[in-house]
């Protein structure tokens, strides 16, 4: 009888192994840090929704590597210092495989050194300041960077708006604003334009009359405002109130419904560059918009949502290609990302871990964002 025991045992364990469920109980954890509340809540909420949609979709399709994905989101409340803490928490307590975030370059710059130090890959959905990915080889982004964006807006101003003399109104308290202003200025001057006057403000400022009055007196043909939506809206409003009719334009920091809510009529006819528009006529975009609207009660996804969606997609795709959740392997797979079919365009990581994408120009017309043109790199 005992001679039968060993083969019997072998058979039973073989049977058990074969009938084990394809899923392991452990989920793959992806961390996300965003400004869900606070001054730039519009950004965080938007990108979070996009990310969430992507994760839910991928889970419904079976997850990755036979496991389900778990998105762990932490709110930094648009506050300094919080991103560092919550990213550390995500890495050391939750043991996430990768980190998604943030929209604003300042906060990405805060968290990136931590991700780099702990060797956990981080993908920023829409931080455009070049310094972010320069922190280290574990930091990536799925959007274009400000040197490109600045160039796009400079060309647009010069060629489409036919502006030769421009004013620059920069926020000194955001890495994004300072960087974008610099690149715009470089390109604009190189193209033969003139930056007649430069004024500054700080985030949280409400009164720009003084700066705008000085700008008005200088007789420029347009004003470039590379800031975030709340200040941009107020600036447009005060500019119009001062009787200035020249066009104002900016970058992707303008993109939020609050721009129109606060700016009202003043932002009509203003332009800004961003990463994508829901009106772009490709099947990928149309499908994404439809899915987003179905999930979030008819809300139209903006660029932050689209990039949030893509960042999650790229991260999971890298995990799939790496074949494991081992962070160095995921990092290498991320660096090797080529032609990932994102909603915001085909995404490939270049040697600086930035994505090379087209920009779109949006105009505000009739209280809505309208797609004007797309500019390829």
């Amino acid at each position: 009888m005992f001679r039968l025991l060993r083969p019997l045992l072998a058979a039973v364990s073989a049977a058990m192994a074969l009938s084990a469920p394809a899923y392991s109980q452990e989920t793959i954890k992806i961390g996300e840090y965003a400004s869900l509340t606070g001054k730039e809540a519009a950004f965080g909420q938007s990108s979070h929704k996009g990310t969430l949609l992507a994760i839910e979709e991928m889970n419904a399709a079976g997850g990755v590597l036979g496991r389900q994905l778990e998105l762990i989101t932490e709110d930094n409340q648009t506050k300094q210092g919080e991103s560092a803490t919550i990213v550390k928490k995500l890495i050391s307590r939750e043991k996430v495989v990768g980190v998604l975030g943030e929209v604003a370059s300042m906060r990405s710059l805060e968290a990136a050194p931590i991700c780099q130090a702990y060797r956990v890959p981080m993908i920023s959905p829409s931080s455009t300041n070049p310094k972010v990915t320069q922190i280290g080889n574990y930091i990536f982004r799925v959007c274009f960077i400000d040197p490109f964006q600045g160039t796009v807006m400079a060309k647009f101003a010069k060629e489409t708006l036919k502006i030769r003399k421009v004013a620059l109104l920069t926020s000194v308290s955001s890495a994004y604003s300072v960087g974008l202003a610099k690149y715009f200025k470089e390109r604009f001057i190189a193209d033969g334009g003139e930056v007649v006057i430069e004024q500054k403000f700080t985030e949280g400022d409400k009164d720009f009359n003084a700066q705008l009055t000085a700008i008005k007196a200088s007789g420029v043909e347009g004003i470039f405002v590379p800031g975030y939506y709340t200040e941009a809206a107020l600036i447009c409003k005060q500019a119009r109130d001062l009787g200035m009719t020249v066009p104002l334009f900016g970058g992707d920091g303008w993109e939020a419904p609050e721009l129109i809510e606060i700016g009202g009529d003043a932002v009509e006819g203003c332009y800004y560059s961003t990463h994508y528009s829901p009106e772009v006529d490709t099947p990928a975009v149309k499908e994404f918009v439809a899915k987003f609207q179905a999930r979030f009660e008819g809300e139209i996804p903006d660029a932050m949502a689209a990039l949030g969606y893509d960042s999650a997609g790229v991260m999971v795709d890298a995990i799939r290609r790496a074949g494991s959740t081992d962070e160095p392997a995921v990092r290498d797979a991320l660096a090797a990302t080529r032609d990932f079919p994102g909603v915001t365009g085909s995404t490939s990581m270049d040697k600086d871990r930035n994505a090379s994408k087209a920009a779109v120009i949006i105009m505000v017309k009739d209280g809505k964002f309208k797609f004007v043109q797309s500019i390829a790199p």
Partner: protein
Amino acid sequence: MTEFLQQLLNGLSLGAIYALIALGYTMVYGVLRFINFAHSDVFMVGAFIGYFAGKHLPHGTVWGGLVALAAAMAGCAVLGIVIERLAYRPLRGGPTLNVLITAIGVSLFLEYTGQLVFGATPRAFPAIFPAKIISVRGLVVSMNQVIVIVVAAVLMVALQLSVYRTKIGMAMRAVSLNPKAAQLVGVNIDVVISFTFGLGSALAAAGGVLYALNYPSIDPLMGMVPGLKAFVAAVLGGVGNIPGAALGALILGMVETFVDGSRWSTYKDAIAFAILIGILLFRPAGLLGRFTTEKV
């Protein structure tokens, strides 16, 4: 020249708003000898009341705007009186430090409850008054700026009249000169103090609505910076002195605007504080104030 005049107008408009807030600070200090830290948050609540009132009223009409303004002023008057009754009155007579701390507590409470209830994201303030732009020989005057200056002036005159021509105003002045003596001659201190708080808070609310009119993005923390600057204005003019507060606010508004339009615009917050320190060092009584030995 036009630019200079334009900046002058901007400064006037900003100064008018600071004046409305500063008056509240100065009145409360005059009567109670303490700085009501929560005043800047009453300003914020006023803006929010105006926001909600504006949602139910037609936009762009003068009477609609006035109703919203009145609602905000009334609401905040009540708020001010309630705060005084609950948080400050029990501590009267005790060390002033305790009241200061309580005031900070009330301020934080209003700010964070505001964030809880309204969310920290800025909201767009409705255009409750008609928004028009008049151009006068190159000088652009926005209707909102005019309204701010006119309303502020009217309220200040009204305040001056009530302080110098009414009985309760006289009682206020008596209490600010010598509380014990005032009580001895039959002044009901509690009523006077409540009235002072109510009045000051109403003015702050008006400041809040007008501020939101010109800078239509409101959020629960909007009161901090204007509040501090208004306080500087009050000190500049002489705390406890009503015309002083107005003068100080005007000067501060002008200086700030001109600095803002110059190369050093990013230093403008520091300017206000530098003025504060300067005044307290060299002329602590303020420009129009009287020197009392206690303070320094």
